[in-house]
Structure formats: C-alpha cells, structure tokens
C-alpha cells in the first residue's frame, strides 16, 4: 500500500502539500457566547464557548486571582468513527485531547484580562477522519473570536507526516493508520510563533526541520483560508452595517 502513487498523488487524489477542503461557519449556536463549526475534508467539529463567567461550584478550587482558567471538554460522537463506539466522557483520549487544547489556548488567550473567571470550551466531533486535534483547535479559535474574547492572535493548527522523503500535509485517517510518524503543531500565524507541537512516532533528527517547515506552511494556508473565507469579516460587516446608521 503506497501513500504516494508514482505520479505523486496521495490516496485521496491530493498533492502532498495540499490541504483538504475547509468549510466553516460562526455563530451556529445562539445560546453559547461564541460558537463555530468547521469541516476539514470529512473531519467535522463543533465548538461552543461559554465565558468569561463566574467559576461554577465544582471548579471553585481552580480559580486564579490574577487570570482566568480555561476548562476544556472534548467529546466524540458515537457515530463519528467508522465503527460505532460508545465513548465515556472521562476516557483517556478525551482527557488527553482536552488537556492539550487547554494548554494551547492558555498561551493564546489574554487570560490576565479576566481574573477569577472561567472560560469553557466545549468540542464535539461529529465525524472524525484524521487531524482531530487540528480541526478542534481551528474550530475553537473561530468560536473564541465569535465570543469576543481577547486573544493575542489566531491559532491555526495542521498536521503532517513524512514518507519517502516527501512531507504530506493534513493527514486523514487512512494515512494516520499507515504507520508513519505524525507531527501536529499549532501556530499563531501573524506573530509567527509555535505554541504547541506534538510528534507521534519516530523520525530521524535530520528530518525534523523539513517536517516543521511543512507544518508551518500548512498552518499558514489554513489561516489564509479562514481569513479569506471572510467568515469573520462577514460576521463583522453584517453586525456593523445597520448600526452605523443610528448610533
């Protein structure tokens, strides 16, 4: 089983440096302070943000006096994977993912502006087809912007893998199972800083530079798509236009 065909195309017809189709929407829930939905190929994730608000009773112990704390809950629907599998809320993978996303956003959100408060990030995976962490981070970024929470910059995440000396961007599920090392990273594109990186599997030290470059380019492409889609500017324009008439 070849990950790249002789003509240079991948299993789903993409070139190695191509992303999957990205579609996103903001403000999908009116009840939450901020919400977003993103599709990266077949991976579909919903994010909802509540906050900043007073810490709930069972989280009182985690309140910090000088900044807010971020609470993240990750959940995968039973129908999201190829096999229908019941996953409990507190299972290992869910807790891992929650902890990683919490770490990522604690670096990006300006937490010192919201002392003693709590920000909740709820993520729900509706269809998982690889690059779960990346889709979740992208969805959560859009939802945080929708909620009006102050952040240093966007957070865009992408995954990459290395095979036959070519790096493949935006891994899907089949490529994940193929056994090559998978590298995911979240960067702040305008400030050009990496705030989270994760490597599953083993690669040679010399290959690391190539992978990091590939992932950074992938993240910048995702940023261009999210910005170019004008999802955020559309939202802003619609909200601003009637208001400028009589304020």
């Amino acid at each position, binding site marked *: 089983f070849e990950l790249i065909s002789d003509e240079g195309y991948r299993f789903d017809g993409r070139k190695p440096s191509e992303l999957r189709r990205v579609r996103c929407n903001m403000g999908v829930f009116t009840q939450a*302070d901020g919400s977003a939905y993103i599709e990266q190929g077949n991976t579909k994730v919903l994010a909802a943000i509540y906050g900043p608000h007073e810490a709930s009773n069972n989280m009182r112990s985690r309140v910090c006096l000088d900044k807010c704390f971020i609470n993240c809950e990750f959940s995968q629907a039973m129908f999201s994977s190829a096999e229908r599998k019941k996953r409990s809320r507190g299972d290992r993978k869910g807790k891992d993912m929650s902890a990683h996303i919490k770490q990522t956003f604690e670096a990006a959100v300006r937490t010192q502006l919201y002392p*003693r408060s709590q920000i909740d990030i709820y993520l729900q995976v509706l269809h998982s087809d690889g690059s779960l962490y990346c889709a979740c981070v992208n969805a959560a970024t859009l939802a945080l912007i929708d909620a009006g929470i*102050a952040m240093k910059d966007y957070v865009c995440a992408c995954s990459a893998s290395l095979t036959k000396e070519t790096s493949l961007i935006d891994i899907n599920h089949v490529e994940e199972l193929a056994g090559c090392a998978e590298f995911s990273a979240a960067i702040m594109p305008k400030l050009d800083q990496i705030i989270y990186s994760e490597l599953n599997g083993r690669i040679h030290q010399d290959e690391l530079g190539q992978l990091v470059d590939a992932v950074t380019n992938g993240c910048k492409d995702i940023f261009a798509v999210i910005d170019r889609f004008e999802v955020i*500017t559309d939202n802003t324009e619609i909200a*601003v236009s*009637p208001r400028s*008439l009589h304020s």
Partner: protein
Amino acid sequence: MSNITIRLPSTRRTQNQYETGNSYLVTPGDVITEDTDYMRGHGTYCTGDADDRLYSSVAGVVERINKLICVRALKSRYTGEVGDIVVGRVKEVQQKRWKIETNSRLDSILQLSSVNLPGGELRRRSATDELNMRSYLNEGDLISAEVQQVNVDGILSLHTRSLRYGKLSQGCLVIVSPSLIKRRKNHIHNLSCGASIILANNGYIWIYTTQHSSQTEEGDGGFIISNESIPIEDREIICRLRNCIKCLAKRSVVLYDTSILYAYEASTSYKVKQLLDDEVCDEIVNKTIYLLQQANVGNNEY
C-alpha cells in the same frame, strides 16, 4: 393539523443593502498602528519594549477618540457602569447579600442593606431580616435593579432602592447581546401597543403587561408579586413583541423604544408565529431599518 416547514441547509447570504461606511475592521493579531503616540484602550495590546506596534486582540471595529484607540468587539459580556439598569436572576442567597447572575464576567451582588424593606420602613437590618431573606428573594427569582457601584475586581453592586425596581413577574424575558441596547435616559417604557418593557443594559429585556405597574405605587418595597391571570390579548401582544425583538437582534439592529415600535407596527400584518420564519423576519427588519432611516433624515433636516 399543523403545517410543517422544513428548510434544507444552504448558505444564505443576507443582502447588505446598506453601506458599511468607512469602518475599519480588524481581527486578532492585526497591527492597528505603528505610532507610539496613541494610548491603548480596550481590545488592544502591546507585545513588549522591543516592539512598538499596537495589536488588536478582538475582532471588531477600531474606534479612535483623539489619542485613544480601542477595538469594540461585536459580542461581549456585559461590563457594568454606575447608573445602569440591569435585570438579573438570583443565583445564591448568602449571609447578608444575594448573588445575582447578570451576564457579566463575575456575578453581581445585591446587599441586604440595598433593598427596600416591605412596608417602606427605614431601619437597621436585624438578624430576623437576615433569616427572612429567602422570603424576599429566593433562588431563581428575576429582579430589576440599578448598578450602585463597580468594585475594583469588576463585581457590580446593585440596589433596588426605588419603586421602579424589584422582583419581576408576569412577563417574558428576551436575552440579546448587551452591545445592541442603546444607552438612553430612560430604559423602562410603557409602549403604545399595550405592553411595557425594560431594556436592561446587560442585554436582558423584560416585557410585561402595563396594568401591572399601576399596582406597585404602594410602598410594598417591590417584592410582592400578584398572580392574577392575564387576558389572552395581552399575552399575544407580549409574544409579538418578543418575536419582533428576536428578529431585530438576529440582524443586529440597535434596540430602543422607537425601533421596537416600528418593528411591531411592521409585523401586524402577520400572525405571531409567522414572525419566526426567516423571510418574514428579513422583511420586518428591512422595513424597520427603512423607517429608522427616514426618521433620521427627518431629524437632520431641522
């Protein structure tokens, strides 16, 4: 037999018939200016001494007032100011105060000494008063109050020391974003369509029947609520107003008594439940915007 309408998912673009003007839109991480002369307001930040540039931290419109630059986000939690009217729900009953949830970053506080005692007496609050706090306001009650003070950490202190404020009943609550409520001199209105409305600054709008307000003229302290039955015509007016406000909020139209009344008048040709449809909602909001523009033009001519 009811008609069921099912809408298939598709991208619907609302037509922006009105110009956005020269508003300067920014997103988080955008550089607003490289000039060091400006003072940083809300929604902006600087990275450090090496970098002089001013970055935006939220997605919104840049507002520049003389030397102050701030970025106003579209949606945000309520930040209180002294004198604002808020509508909130009692979350907890503590020793000498109530904790009120007001859609802000931290819950607000209503001290026992800041409420009027029944009978209108002026006296020191005793231990009996403390034990009877639950009979005045219990968990889950909705109240209207005014912001007395904003503490250093951002917690609002409320008071209900006027007969206009107190426990709310026999009405409908509509929750919108606080940025849609226009700041005016009066927030409690008796609308000409037959209902009354409280446009609280924290985005909670309370619609109730007008006849109710005449009964709170006595000095009962605002905590006695009457449970008389409201006739169906009044209920319909309240429902219609609620649906109109939801339509206006969906299209981000600023809410104040005139805009709500225009929307109400535009909606009279439809049945109350038709107002929940997207197309009817668009039509009503367009009519309202048109009428508001006409009113603005009329004002500018004088």
